[in-house]
């Protein structure tokens, strides 16, 4: 039945080559933990991606309850955490996932570094990777403010002070992020927009470039 539906669509739209392009590639022996257990270090990139997917999905569910204004933000998180069925799990996944993505990305960076995989012809992919690193850190920084509790607020105060201390662009960067003189309603609205729209957009674009380059070049060979 399913096969028939697939064939029917495929005859009209020729979809087989589309997904075959993505699915068909080889997994060489030296990156396959089934053959050499130490090759698990090659899994860190995939695990980072897995956690990124968890973050996107759990984040989508969080926005079903979260209200980005200084009066309701805290209340809505509190409600989700304490009243909503399984709300604890949704928030927990996003909270712990944020740490996990950093850990995995750090390990992935070390794997790529110590296998020398950033060398010609993969320089560009390394640069894209470092940009991904910044985007993920930015997501961590902006997301931390959103529950609008004490630790959130004061960590942001310090973070913005640090941003302000940068020469030349410091004042501008602070105003851009805080949305004004005080850290308050405007700041929360901006951090929400950055956390939910700007950075995820950049993240998806960069990930697309990252994966495109990996498929195009193949994984680096054995040492």
């Amino acid at each position, binding site marked *: 039945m399913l096969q028939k539906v697939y064939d029917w669509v*495929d005859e*009209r*739209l*020729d979809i*087989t*080559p589309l997904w075959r392009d993505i*699915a068909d*590639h*080889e*997994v060489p*022996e030296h990156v396959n933990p089934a*053959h050499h257990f130490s090759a698990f270090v090659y899994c860190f990139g*995939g695990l980072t991606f897995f956690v990124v997917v*968890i973050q996107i999905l759990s984040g989508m569910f969080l926005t079903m309850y979260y209200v980005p204004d*200084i009066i309701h933000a805290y*209340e809505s998180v*509190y409600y989700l955490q304490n009243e909503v069925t399984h709300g*604890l799990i949704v928030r*927990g*996944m*996003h*909270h*712990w996932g*944020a*740490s996990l993505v*950093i850990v995995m990305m750090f390990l992935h960076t*070390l794997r790529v*570094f*110590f*296998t*020398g995989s*950033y*060398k*010609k012809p993969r320089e560009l992919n*390394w*640069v894209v990777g*470092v940009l991904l*690193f*910044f985007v993920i850190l930015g997501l961590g*920084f902006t997301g*931390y403010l959103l*529950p*609008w*509790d*004490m*630790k959130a*607020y*004061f*960590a942001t*105060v*310090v*973070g913005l002070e*640090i941003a302000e*201390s*940068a*020469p030349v662009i410091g004042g501008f960067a602070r105003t851009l992020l805080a949305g004004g003189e005080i*850290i*308050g309603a405007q700041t929360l609205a901006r951090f929400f927009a950055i956390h939910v729209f700007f950075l995820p957009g950049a993240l998806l674009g960069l990930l697309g470039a990252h994966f495109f380059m990996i498929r195009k070049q193949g994984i*680096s060979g054995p*040492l």
Partner: protein
Amino acid sequence: MHRGKGMKFVGDSRVPAERKPNIPKDYSEYPGKTEAFWPNFLLREWMVGAVFLIGFLVLTVAHPAPLERIADPTDSGYIPLPDWYFLFLYQLLKYEFAAGQYTVVGAVLMPGVAFGALLLVPWLDSGKERRPLKRPIASGLMMLGVASIIFLTWESVDEHDWEAAAQQGEIVDDVEVDETAEGYEIYQSQESCIGCHGGDMLGGAAGPNIFESDYDKDAVMDIIINGADGMPADQFEGSDEELETLAEFIANDGQDPNGDDE
């Protein structure tokens, strides 16, 4: 794929009528024990992923995400702390060579150089050799960077007063102070008390929430007269009766002891 003359299409579309066989490529001719990503390798990845996900879910249930009390921008005594992965940057700003007038060094210069170098790694280490032991400078610098991050994070965790941190963020039960009680009125005339414990009696600049501990009337009077740890003695201004009324009001958790509600 058939191209050019003689090609057949599905109806008037541009999709070729000739079907390609839908079978994976054969990688057996590749060097080593190469296998196909789809479906062989992906299936195994999925199984590992499922185990990983279960472990992750257990973690989220066993350790709920923390939530402190709602942000109070006026509470300037709060010791701030970023999430753990920023601790190393935060710690850097505590050292003399990177703080005060040198903040720019710790906040911008050092992280800027480190992350800038990370970005330019392919050009800083552009030799052909890939094995880490054959390029000791690059490997050494990276190890140094990782070691500094671990060291700074460690120091930061070590220096932080975690007990005080947990306490300062705790969600406190709202105390509904009966503002019509006589005791409340008496408190409102005590400038010295208000100075530390705040006008609402729920804690302020230098003193905690008055209702925080469960003292009885005599204990409260004793503290007001003789002072307590960090609280000066003899600050109350008024008659002994007033003092007694206030102490009773406090011991009764901010409710009028003579009130008839409940």
